[in-house]
């Protein structure tokens, strides 16, 4: 009898109904934007409209509401701001499904550590969401824009980030945890991709804007932002961002356009590559040696080059190698001269592989970095020619 009673009571305890929360009672947050204005956090939360998304059967309500709802509040801490949102939202905010956090330029300049603690500490937050800086415009506007192709705006931005990283190379998706890790690592500074808003965000948040073929407002990924000691100090342009990603081995694929005669351009597509970095000490100064090897496809050749002969292929390969070298050199020079922030991790390399020397130069590294010398050796092979054997102009010339 006692046994049966114990089993019965245990069953009651393991039903999983203790302090349960129904999905209907939660507001699932897809994205947050964080700004700091007058020492207060200004937080906007993009909430997935489950009523619209789920197709609850109420077609009339489904057709009139937007797929997302944005709440915006300000308070002295992030956690408090999110709680404050319950004064407006009929549901408690659930941040376990955040895909991306957008950070204003201003907040990033104040410092990443100012905004990190809650996101790192909160048990619901999964920490692997991506981070993106919004340059110039108010960051919350980026959350309100509706997208034509994706129901959830933040999914559209996330897809763009992944695609731009995979196929263009000017950005690298950075997870919140990865950025935090960079912040705590010795000898390397952080980078975060940044975007700008184009068009009229006020128009872009209207549902009608998705019924027009040309988007009224859009988020455009521009490149990488540079940090120093957790504070945003500047932005890299497209080419410098690609150069940086090349050097760091972050690229998955990229198009490399270069002049192949006075007027025309050719483009090669990087399909795989490897970057090796070493730092040697010469005359008590570090010299960075970068070696890049890989394979590329001929994507487009608009010059009069005979690709059937070795000389023609070598000609294109040399130009491509030079262009890649230029991209990387420009990126290093720009960062050295204008930012003085070791986003390449040269110091980290020394810390890990030449600790004695690092200990000696640790305190004067900032100055040393600005003067650091480097050598880049690029050696790509043309692996595939594409569907045609020769360039169109080359064929015409031959005829």
């Amino acid at each position, binding site marked *: 009898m006692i046994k049966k009673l114990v089993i019965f009571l*245990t069953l009651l*305890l*393991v039903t999983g109904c*203790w*302090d349960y929360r129904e999905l209907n009672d939660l507001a699932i947050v897809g994205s947050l934007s964080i700004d700091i204005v007058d020492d207060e956090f200004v937080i906007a939360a993009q909430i997935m409209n489950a009523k619209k998304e789920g197709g609850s059967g109420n077609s009339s309500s489904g057709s009139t509401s937007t797929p997302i709802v944005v709440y915006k509040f300000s308070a002295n801490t992030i956690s408090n701001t999110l709680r404050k949102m319950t004064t407006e939202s009929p549901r408690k905010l659930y941040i376990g499904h955040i895909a991306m956090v957008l950070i204003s330029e201003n907040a990033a300049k104040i410092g990443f550590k100012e905004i990190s603690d809650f996101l*790192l500490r909160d*048990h619901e937050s*999964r*920490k*692997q969401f991506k981070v993106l800086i919004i340059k110039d415009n108010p960051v919350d506007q980026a959350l309100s824009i509706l997208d034509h192709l994706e129901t959830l705006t933040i999914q559209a931005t996330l897809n763009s980030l992944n695609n731009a990283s995979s196929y263009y190379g000017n950005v690298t998706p950075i997870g919140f*945890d990865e950025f*935090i*890790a960079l912040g*705590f*690592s*010795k000898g390397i500074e952080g980078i975060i991709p940044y975007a700008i808003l184009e068009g009229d965000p006020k128009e872009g948040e209207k549902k009608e804007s998705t019924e027009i073929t040309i988007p009224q407002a859009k988020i455009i990924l521009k490149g990488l932002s540079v940090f120093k000691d957790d504070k945003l100090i500047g932005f890299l342009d497209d080419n410098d961002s690609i150069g940086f990603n090349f050097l760091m081995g972050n690229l998955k694929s990229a198009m490399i356009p270069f002049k192949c005669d006075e007027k025309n351009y050719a483009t090669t597509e990087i399909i795989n590559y490897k970057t090796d970095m070493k730092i040697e000490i010469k005359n008590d100064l570090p010299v960075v040696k970068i070696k890049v090897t890989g394979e590329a496809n001929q994507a487009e050749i608009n010059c009069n080059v005979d690709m059937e002969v070795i000389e023609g292929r070598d000609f294109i390969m040399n130009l491509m190698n030079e262009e890649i070298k230029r991209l990387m050199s420009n990126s290093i020079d720009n960062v050295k001269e204008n930012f003085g922030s070791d986003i390449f991790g040269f110091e980290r390399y020394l*810390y*890990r*592989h030449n*600790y004695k020397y690092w200990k000696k130069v640790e305190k004067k590294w900032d100055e040393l970095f600005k003067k650091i010398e480097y050598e880049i050796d690029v050696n790509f092979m043309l692996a595939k020619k594409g569907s045609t054997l020769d360039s169109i102009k080359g064929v015409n010339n031959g005829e």
Partner: protein
Amino acid sequence: MGSKNNKISAFQFAVIGFLSGASLFEGVASVFLLESSMQNSWITVIIALIVGLLPIGLILYVINYEPEKNIIEKINHLFGPIIGNIMNVILIGVTFVILITNLWSLVNFAEVKYLTETPATVIAILFMATVVYSTIKGIETIARSSEVLLYLFIIFQIFVTFALIGNLEIDNLFPIMENGISPILNGSFKFLTYVIPSFMLLTIIPKSMVEDNKKITKYVINGYVISMLVMLLSIFVVVSVVGPNLADLYRFPSYYVMKKIHLTGFVENLENILSILWIINMYICMSISLHYISTYLNNVFKIKSDLKRVISIIAIAAIAIYLKDKYYYSSVVGILIVRNIYPYIVGVATLIIISIISIKIFFNKKSKEIQNQS
């Protein structure tokens, strides 16, 4: 009940040690290991492995002495009733701290990761009920559960390691010993204080209770070495996947690292299933701790009836839950206790008492030899 099931194999004996040895690794030992040694944590574990062979040797020396007696009877026999009882009470205190710390560690993990709104006491009661049940069933049940859970443990451990191989970045393990050997040595001694006391609990099982007891020494040493190697592998994977700085930031670094497991694009969030690894460790350690305390009470109060034995086990479990709630009332306090008090109260006390017993056994044997010769 328990008294009927009293034969276990040497393998099962060693498995209890193997699993309970790593019970405080996640969330406790790994955190302090990273704090003290950062990227050199793996070296710290290797040194701890080697140094730890000495106390393991002493524990085996005690186990092999008077095979038909458990440690409580051995102490009483060696030191007489007064000193013997004092030493036994100290060991019971140590065991209670091990039991409570494991309970807190488990409840805290469940509370932080899954059951944030459930009262900690309810989680503790639910988990303790399982531990009480296996302890009531006797040492054979604990041993059999250990053996069964061992295979699950191995499968999960191998899966985790292979799933994370692609994320390993060996560069995260550099520089090596940049601050010399002393922080690593300190770290390894402290690390051992979380591992060795669990092996001490094995002394409650009389050697004669083990069927193939000639293999005990070999199996226990293997169990200890493999247990340390598993922890070495875990810390190696954690540090090389996320780097020492980020790993140091988290309360459960392995749990965080397991979040990185993505297989074929859709198999993810496996950390929630895989965290059963540590629950297995804690379950076995708590079972053997409870068995230790219950055996002591049986000896002191000469408990013969099954009902009284069951009541005593439930009472110990209830006291453990009460003490956990009283002393480990918040995770901040809990961490302070396991960082600043546990190593000295549990680790050092265990080492001192085991050393004293070993010395006494050694001199007893010597005097017997002399008597025999004369």
